[in-house]
């Protein structure tokens, strides 16, 4: 009888009845929570408070709305391709003047100690290097869904192409959602 003590106790008296009721309803509630968590929990998009990688419309717009980013965002979310040149600033009659030394200069976003270090401004369509000096991985993910989302493993570098449209693009790190910054393109 000793080994049945907890169950026996639960079934005695008014408090025992409520305990038994509690036990079964709590277990059922717990299972419900587990099911909800299990069904929706493991996809990467679940953890992002801004929903940047989710399928629904992005709840947060870029900081500057004067130059709304293109509606034809790339499907894979990697980066905005530079092939939509006609849509922007009339580079048509520029005869590749003197092969622009500045264009060769590397533009770098550095991640160190769980913070971004971003250049003040970046030219539209520039290839930007993301240098991750931390040991864990980070992402540079636009708040607006699908503009850019680049994963950089710890201690490595990756590149991506910034959007062609000038403006301010706020972004964050998916695994560490309080890492936020803004990329100014212009």
């Amino acid at each position: 009888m000793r080994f049945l003590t907890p169950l026996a106790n639960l079934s005695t008296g008014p408090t025992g009845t409520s305990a038994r009721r509690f036990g079964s309803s709590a277990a059922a509630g717990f299972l419900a929570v587990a099911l909800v968590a299990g069904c929706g929990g493991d996809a990467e998009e679940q953890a992002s408070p801004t929903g940047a990688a989710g399928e629904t419309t992005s709840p947060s717009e870029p900081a500057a709305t004067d130059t709304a980013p293109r509606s034809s965002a790339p499907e894979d979310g990697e980066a905005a391709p530079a092939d939509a040149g006609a849509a922007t600033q009339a580079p048509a009659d520029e005869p590749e003047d003197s092969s622009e030394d500045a264009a060769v200069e590397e533009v770098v976003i550095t991640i160190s100690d769980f913070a971004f270090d971003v250049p003040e401004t970046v030219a539209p369509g520039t290839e930007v290097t993301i240098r991750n000096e931390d040991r864990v991985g980070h992402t540079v993910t636009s708040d607006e869904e699908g503009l850019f989302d680049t994963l950089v493993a710890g201690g490595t570098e990756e590149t991506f192409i910034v959007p062609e449209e000038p403006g301010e693009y706020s972004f964050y790190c998916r695994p560490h959602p309080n890492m936020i910054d803004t990329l100014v393109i212009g």
Partner: protein
Amino acid sequence: MRSVDYRSPTSKLELLVRALVVLALAVDALIHFRLAGNFSLAVPGGIAGGTLFRLQAGAAILAGIFLAVRGSRGAYALAGLVLLSAFVAVMLYRYVDVPAIGPIPAMYEPIWYFEKSLSAVATGLGAVLAGAGLLLQRGRKPQ
């Protein structure tokens, strides 16, 4: 004079403590499931961070169900162990840059964000309450 049986088999206080510990385990499980995917991105090496998070969440679910159904000393001890392991891990990797140990990857993350803070509070309080539940159980006389 009405006498009060302080050694009631299942007191309301014990039920309250049990409910709160089960709640803490539910929060623990939910947050670890939610963060698992993104943590795999940040810590892909060894046993991926996401896998560890899912294991923790699974343990919390099992401990929660066991505690809700049984309410025994063993159930409280298991719940306390699961909650304490989560609390110690989150605090350790928040403040100490622990290198990779065998298959366990380096998971140093010197920042707080909402889910992480909530998990730390829930598991810390839950572990204390599980200890209290254990003490309440010790005071009970076997029938």
